[in-house]
């Protein structure tokens, strides 16, 4: 007899690794014994975690695409565009003329370049909309007259051949670069580089192909991340030196459409202004706006600041994430309550076992630990299944809906951690209730 051993806390207590291992093993066993019930119990967590991960992946994918489009506009750029004013406003103010005159002028451009500090490079462009022909093949497209540094400013890659050079601009060589989309329509079978295409009465030699770009300046009011609908004819562009465009199509643009006749005089359709540093973008945009307001008595221009769009997209994403987070939190809490409910039933069901264990030397803490481990295992397994599904579902969506989805490593990590945390939070109460039972009562329980 060694009486001192009766209450010797040093030897027994504390959580030795093998006790923990054994408790976890026991937990698994008890979950495995009630497979169907455990699965149904964990289902709430499974769906919660799965929906969190897949919704985040879709949201990230969509906002990534939108941000990429905005970034392509250039974060140091300010984009000015001519907008055709609505008819009602022109009727009163403008002297009646056959030629509608509106939009950005060379005068605006000159003033901007001379007075706005920090303005670095300016890319003007003019557009003519008409059919582009190759042999008997024609496509409704836009001829864009611009300068040789346009691709660099707007982050557009040359896919084949090359862009025109400054010298070709000065010499007014009739060369053109097609967008991928236009090239595909016009030359379905062979490479267009070296071929000659026609617009109206002018012929242009194709020297290169430029990558497609979604016009992100359209994002503006829509606000929705990535909600850009490409209308027909959009993206069908043919780039030529601006000097060539003026030479061939003149200052006044004529449009013949289904019986009506329209003439427009627009100096510049679009001007991209690059500012030296992104910090100056907002100030420069303000200065430009002031100049334009003075020069134009009607709203026939539009100023787009990609940086602002980017910030707005970022904000939208934040709000989206908060909404998503709340939905996820609610679904996970519902899942947690489901688990708690079942664990309470389990505790009642296993009252006798608890009594036996208490009689055989289990302390209250041992009982708490046992039930807590079981709950955590349940929610953890649910979380793992959820992570698996949550990674698989976006892949399926990407595959069938051709939507970009992005899974950051932190999304499954956080979702899984939360599911384990839910196990702890919702497992505590049933476990404490199990431990609080008196051994005598528990042993008497049928």
């Amino acid at each position: 007899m060694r009486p001192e051993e009766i209450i010797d806390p040093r030897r027994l207590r504390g959580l030795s690794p093998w006790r923990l291992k054994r408790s976890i093993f026991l937990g698994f066993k008890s979950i495995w014994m009630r497979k169907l019930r455990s699965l149904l119990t964990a289902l709430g967590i499974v769906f919660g975690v799965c929906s969190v991960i897949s919704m985040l992946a879709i949201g990230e994918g969509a906002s990534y695409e939108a941000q990429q489009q905005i970034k392509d506009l250039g974060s140091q750029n300010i984009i000015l565009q001519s907008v055709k004013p609505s008819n009602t406003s022109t009727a009163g103010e403008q002297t009646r003329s056959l030629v509608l005159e509106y939009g950005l002028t060379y005068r605006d451009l000159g003033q901007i370049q001379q007075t706005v500090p920090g303005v670095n490079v300016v890319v003007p462009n003019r557009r003519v909309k008409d059919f582009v022909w190759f042999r008997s093949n024609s496509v409704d497209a836009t001829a864009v007259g611009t300068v040789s540094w346009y691709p660099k400013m707007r982050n557009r890659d040359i896919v084949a051949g090359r862009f025109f050079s400054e010298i070709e601009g000065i010499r007014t060589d009739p060369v053109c670069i097609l967008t991928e989309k236009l090239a595909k329509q016009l030359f379905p079978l062979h490479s267009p580089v070296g071929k000659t295409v026609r617009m109206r009465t002018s012929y242009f030699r194709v020297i290169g192909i430029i990558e497609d770009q979604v016009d992100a300046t359209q994002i503006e009011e829509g606000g929705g991340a990535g909600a850009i609908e490409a209308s027909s004819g959009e993206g069908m562009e043919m780039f030529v030196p601006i000097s060539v465009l003026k030479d061939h199509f003149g200052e006044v643009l004529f449009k013949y459409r289904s019986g009506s006749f329209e003439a427009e005089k627009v100096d510049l359709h679009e001007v991209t202004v690059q500012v030296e540093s992104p910090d100056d973008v907002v100030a420069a945009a303000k200065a430009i706006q002031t100049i334009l307001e003075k020069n134009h008595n009607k709203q026939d221009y539009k100023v787009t600041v990609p940086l602002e769009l980017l910030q707005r997209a970022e904000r939208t994403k934040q709000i989206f994430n908060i909404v998503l987070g709340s939905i996820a939190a609610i679904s996970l809490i519902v899942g947690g309550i489901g688990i708690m409910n079942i664990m309470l039933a389990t505790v009642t069901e296993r009252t006798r076992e608890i009594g036996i264990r208490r009689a055989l030397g289990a302390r209250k803490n041992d009982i708490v630990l046992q039930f807590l481990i079981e709950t955590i295992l349940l929610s953890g397994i649910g979380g793992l299944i959820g992570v698996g599904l949550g990674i698989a579902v976006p892949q399926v969506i990407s595959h069938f809906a051709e939507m970009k989805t992005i899974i950051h490593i932190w999304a499954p990590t956080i979702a899984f951690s939360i599911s384990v945390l839910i196990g702890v939070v919702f497992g505590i109460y049933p476990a404490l209730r199990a431990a609080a039972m008196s051994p005598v009562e528990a042993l008497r329980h049928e």
Partner: protein
Amino acid sequence: MPDADHSPKPTIIELRDVEKHYQMGDHLLKALNGINLKIYAGDYISILGPSGGGKSTLLNVLGCLDQPTVGTYLLEGHDVSVMNDDDLSRVRGKRLGFIFQSYNLIQSLDVLENIEVPMFYRGVSEKDSREVAAHLAERVGLGHRMHHKPTELSGGQQQRVAIARALANDPAVILADEATGNLDSKSGGDILQIFDELNAEGKTLIMITHDEGMADRTPRVIRLKDGQIVVDERKELKPTVATT
């Protein structure tokens, strides 16, 4: 009040003026009413009495499952009546072995695992407890059934697992509550045979029963009535017990 002899053996259990009260509605029930008892090492005791006489309450108190309302309970010199819940759990796990009428095995565990439960809570290493459990399973004649679940065993076999489990931590006292109550006479006899052997090896056994036959088997008999000890007698050992 009749008392057992002045045994030279060390005292394991001593109850002094122990009372256990239950509040039943508006009247107080004294399930134990002034129990004075000394149990010595190697004692083999039957506790008999009519139902409602306080047998189960006494067993719960002796088993540290419940604490006396009044009085002192010394187990191996330690005052159990003032211990906290954790210490009581430790005492139950290390110094007491329980055998119940309905076996009370854990259904999800196999024979070996059931025997290991008390050692698990005592913190015995996995290897040691495996070894001890296997040895004990052999000892009660279940060496060939170590990985069977309780549902795959007969009542007698289940009770033998319970005995092995009660022995796992080498307790000071083994408490049996109607251990043969659910068994036919053959299996019950086997169980009692094991008890006799254990006592012959020096184990202290306390059995609660309402079977008068048991009283002939054990050298010391305590009879309870209305929460009080009415008889506490010690007889000569029968030759049948001594043969083992």
